[in-house]
């Protein structure tokens, strides 16, 4: 077959999903090599909007910004397995994660639950990057126990009036819009009185306070609402249906969080350190290093089992959480071995010269922390597995 010129401008009508998986994979790989700007490859953390908008535009013009959306709405219309291929190739190439929650989170929700007006207004702007979304779920007093959230939305004329606060809002400072879970009925059980609302971040009464994390980065924000108004037309789905809507997203997307890619990258840094310091000749280091190497190789094997399941068109069960637990904890072990192997380099912040190689020895230590805490802490994941998979009594 003839591989199309990867630099050609994409035709939105191309049916990428119709390609065989392998052909599609090579197509993506070659196109990324030719088109992805170097500055978005292997970033240290999450990229801010100003760091990646050029890359967004490139993907948007190619028609590849929304792999999961239907083609009729401007997406690629990929099957789950092709979406996985796409993610794998983006990860393989080291493409950093953009402020993509409009594409991955609220977009699909609007497509499924939104009114025609919501679809017409929000979807094209989300694709183009005109609307950058952040998520308003977590609250200071509702971390793992999300359903106990307190932020309220009260009807007043044509608006809802929102009061309260959201926290751990990833890249909230970059967002133009927010999708919010707010309590609209206090008289019912806690999951049942929650609604799903859209907000303009420019609305009066919103304060965004960046939260500096332990590594010194500003990935997260706390967002305060003081009588913030949003029109009733921004309610998605039915009133008090918010919990169901938010949970509806947990499909095969959960695979991503258990992908072996991040532990592999952490392990690659460990290798780099070991090479610089001549540790491959150290039997004690090699003993720990090889155990970790196999932990990550065997994670990949387990990941493939779930990918196969998606390929067969089967839904994923709660057991997929095991990938997240193993991946995030292997990454932390890798970061600990890196500290041990670094000797005094393990005490230095930022990039430093390690026997001739510039490295940030502690970066994996910091970057592996959120994995066990966010997205349902590993404690919560273990609770879920105990109940839903092992059937242990509650």
């Amino acid at each position: 077959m003839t591989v199309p010129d990867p630099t050609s401008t994409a035709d939105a009508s191309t049916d990428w999903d119709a390609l065989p998986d392998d052909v599609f994979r090579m197509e993506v790989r070659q196109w990324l090599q030719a088109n992805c700007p170097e500055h978005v490859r292997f970033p240290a953390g999450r990229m801010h909007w100003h760091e990646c908008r050029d890359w967004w535009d490139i993907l948007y013009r190619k028609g590849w910004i929304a792999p999961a959306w239907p083609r009729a709405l401007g997406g690629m219309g990929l099957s789950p397995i092709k979406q996985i291929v796409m993610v794998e190739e983006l990860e393989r190439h080291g493409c950093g994660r953009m402020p993509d929650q409009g594409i991955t989170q609220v977009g699909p929700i609007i497509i499924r639950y939104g009114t025609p007006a919501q679809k017409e207004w929000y979807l094209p702007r989300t694709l183009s990057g005109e609307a950058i979304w952040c998520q308003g779920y977590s609250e200071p007093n509702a971390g793992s126990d999300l359903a106990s959230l307190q932020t309220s939305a009260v009807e007043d004329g044509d608006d809802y009036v929102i009061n309260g606060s959201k926290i751990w809002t990833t890249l909230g400072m970059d967002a133009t819009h927010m999708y919010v879970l707010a309590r609209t009925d206090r008289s019912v059980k806690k999951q049942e009185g929650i609604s799903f609302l859209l907000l303009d971040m420019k609305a009066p009464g919103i304060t965004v306070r960046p939260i500096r994390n332990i590594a010194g980065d500003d990935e997260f924000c706390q967002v305060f609402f003081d009588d913030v108004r949003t029109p009733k037309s921004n309610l998605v789905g039915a009133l008090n249906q918010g919990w169901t809507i938010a949970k509806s997203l947990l499909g095969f997307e959960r695979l991503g969080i258990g992908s072996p890619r991040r532990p592999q990258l952490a392990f690659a840094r460990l290798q780099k350190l070991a090479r610089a310091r001549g540790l491959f000749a150290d039997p004690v280091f090699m003993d720990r290093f090889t155990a970790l190497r196999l932990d990550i190789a065997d994670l990949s094997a387990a990941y493939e089992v779930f990918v196969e399941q998606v390929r067969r068109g089967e839904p994923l069960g709660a057991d997929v959480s095991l990938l997240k637990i193993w991946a995030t904890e292997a990454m932390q072990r890798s970061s600990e071995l890196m500290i041990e192997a670094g000797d005094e380099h393990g005490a230095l912040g930022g990039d430093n010269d390690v026997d001739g190689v510039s490295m940030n020895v502690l970066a994996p230590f910091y970057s592996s922390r959120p994995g066990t805490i966010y997205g349902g802490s590993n404690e919560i994941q273990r609770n879920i597995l105990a109940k839903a998979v092992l059937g242990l009594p509650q």
Partner: protein
Amino acid sequence: MTDAAALDQRRLLADSVADYCRRSDPLRRARALRDTDPGFDRSAWQEMASLGWLGVGVPEAWGGLGLTLAEQAVVARGLSAAVMPEPVTAAMIATRAIVGCTDGALKASLLEGIVGGAILPALAWQAAHGDIDPARCAVVAAPDPSAPGALLLDGSACFVVGACGADGFVVAVRTMDAPALCWVPAGTPGLSLSPHRLADGRPVADLRFERVGVPSGHRLAVGEAAHEALAAALDEGQFAIAAELLGLSQRVLDMTLDYLRTRTQFGRPIGAFQALQHRAVDLYIHLRIGDAAFDQALRQAGGGDADRRAAAASRAKARACETARHITREAIQMHGAIGFTDDCDIGLYVKRALVLSAWLGNARLHRSRYAALVPLDAAEA
């Protein structure tokens, strides 16, 4: 065979093993046969032959089923989940060595006998504990001055699993210029066995060779062919042992989860206590990782590259050892005082896991072999 057909085949085989285990009460037999010699039952062996399990990996030309290592693993796994006392894996390893040997009359008759259950073989090759390099062996073969073409063997082989009750031995020897594999029937003059008792009550033996005569027709392979037959048998053996470890791990986890669901303390099933729940989840994760690693390693082992096969075998064995260690130890603790009694079946599995983990190299050895065999490359990173 298509993938789907292969899966069906394996399911059928697994069902047949499970069915046999259900009706043959292997746990009771395992208890009864502990600390006896040979520690298994020849009539059960004969039944297994009739079910085809002794020739799963033997090409059809020699009367076997002509299936792959994957199917052999299915049998090993299923039997191990029931602590079946018969030395199926040990015989499989010796059989695999013979299959890899140069075609000839002896090979054909041995395989026919093995598949039918009449000949039970064991493999004698290991020079020293903690050393699984097939290139080293401690039996030297010299020309027999009194019989042209024949050899005289001197030396020793340690840790021969299945030696007690075996009808003959595939023996790895060094000749002046090359390695070789010979067939030495049990009872050959000059061959003596020092039996030891394994932790699980089965026998194992060290073999001593003193001027043991091997007629020329009993040479199964020489040189590279002998080396490759032995190496392949050992690698596939590691897979079979890993399958056994995973099979018993799964059973032990199931038993432990059942216990957690039913045993009551302080007015609640102990499985309702969160600390135990989280630890049980970790056992489950280890099992899933172990299964996935095994299946992927099995696929990597195909294709004829000996280093790749060895690395894959080490990966499977290392992981299976860790999985079984973690699960069996926690199973004792979670069963409490009951788990420490001989009446509790957990103990049978714990001891079996100890034996299987040490046989043909423990986890540490296999991790280190893996590291030596597989270069670090960008693909893995």
